[in-house]
């Protein structure tokens, strides 16, 4: 919640801004991370609101489990043509986070095949999406290289 702080004395304290995650499986805070819904019957993981488990069919329920923050890029594409309004180029990919596959953009890297490599180690990063008319900042996520790649 925004906590307005009254200016005092010589300086002004910065207002704390309300942040919302782009998707509800992104948890913000000091250590942003993703959470998955894990089927209590078979362990299959999902990111969306579930009616039942698509792996085993059980509707017994799901636990919330943290997803590893680091992973390996197991596939990617560099999109140069997208729907109107979608800025290009961007790198879309699939990251293997310690056994859980996650869809996300590869960020904080030059979007070309010289810099983005299959198998590269990446870690979760937050990405500002924008601020709305109420002053709320939406925060998304992506995966950035753990190391800078040398060409």
């Amino acid at each position, binding site marked *: 919640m925004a906590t307005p702080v009254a200016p005092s004395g010589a300086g002004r304290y910065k207002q704390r801004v309300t942040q919302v*995650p*782009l998707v509800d*499986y992104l948890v913000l805070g000091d250590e942003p991370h993703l959470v998955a819904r894990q089927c209590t019957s078979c362990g299959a993981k999902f990111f969306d609101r579930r009616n039942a488990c698509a792996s085993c069919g059980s509707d017994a329920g799901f636990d919330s489990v943290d997803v590893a923050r680091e992973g390996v890029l*197991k596939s990617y594409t560099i999109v*140069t043509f997208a*729907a109107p309004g979608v800025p290009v180029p961007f790198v879309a990919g699939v990251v293997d986070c310690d056994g859980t596959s996650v*869809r996300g953009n590869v960020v904080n890297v030059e979007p070309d095949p010289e810099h983005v490599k299959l198998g590269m180690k990446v870690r979760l990063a937050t990405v500002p999406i924008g601020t*709305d008319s109420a002053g*709320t900042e939406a925060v998304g996520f992506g995966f950035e290289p753990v190391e800078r790649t040398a060409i």
Partner: protein
Amino acid sequence: MTENVWILGIHMTKFGKHPDKDTIDLASEAAIAAMRDGGVTIKDMGVLAAGNLMGGSGSIGQQLQKQIGQTGIPVFNVANACATGATALRTAIMAVKAGEADMGLAVGVEKLAGAGLLGAGNRKPDKDTWEPSGRVGAVAALDGRVGTENMPGVFAQVGMEYMYENSYAGTPFELFAKISEKNHAHSTLNPLAAYTKKMSLEQIMGDVMIAYPNTRPMCSANCDGAAAAVVVSDSKLKTLSKEQQRRAVKVKASILTSDPWQEACQVLPDVNTLTRRAAAQAYEQAGIGPEDLDLVELHDCFATAELVHYDNLGLCEPGGAVDFFLSGAPWRDGKRPVNVSGGLQSKGHPIAATGIANIWEVCHHLRGEAGDRQIEGAKVGLAHVIGLGSACGVHVLEKAAA
């Protein structure tokens, strides 16, 4: 024991731009020609299965009947994305196999010329205030923010994933572009293809990049077209003329699968498992193996997709798709010709028509009528399509015995 089903008549229209023909014009052309090809008429049809994805109406079958013959038969309007044509065929075959009709008509039609980038509708503009909605509580549209919704990008990832899993040490872009080079070269012999231009590797790699590594010519061509097939039961076929029996093509396998759950399947569509299953079921139903195939028409919606299907259809050793391609095997003069029609990249991909059009190509060769592009002595062929969502149709066809 259910009896065999045969393809009695089949036709595809020329794929391309047909601005003066509407959807029903194309569907009628294909249907009437298919029935004429089989020496039968609409009055002989006991069932109709029809598909059209972009036309906006759910009743393509009835709209077609209102032009070519309202006989009151059961109509199944079907949809399975890019596997719609194969689904229509599967439906007609199923009805004949079940003994509910002795002859059926399957039709697929699409007007897609000028459609542009598929899969990515306009991204919804951001709302005034962030409000979570939908199954992941998204506060804004996710295309471009969390991966890509567009088809060239999705299928680029499908191909790149194969490269990762099989530790390809070369340049993926060049390898995939060579696959496209093959299909464009093949298309020069196909007068019904939307594009019949040979393209060099340099031209393909130098063309507009859509979603790395897919350049524009490596993407299926959006165009208009229709295809239709008449299927007939074994016992009914035996009552027809010698000529009709001679040209009939036996359906040795007709399979449809959907995507079974796999760990990553809701993150990146898994086009592999359902194809592998469909292929295994098809080979079993047909009593053959991939080594028996004289030609294959598979779903190269993008050059990156063709590679993985060499593996999925068992045309090569598991993990061996790159070596298979580099050996020259899938070229028309190779040991396992793939997409001699030019494939979706150059023949074109009018979505609901494709699943019957590739059956037409196989039949054309099995009947010995493919002229300049005839695969000599072709006896057995396989046609494969994948629709995202997902559905996979695999048919194995065999030339009639002399």
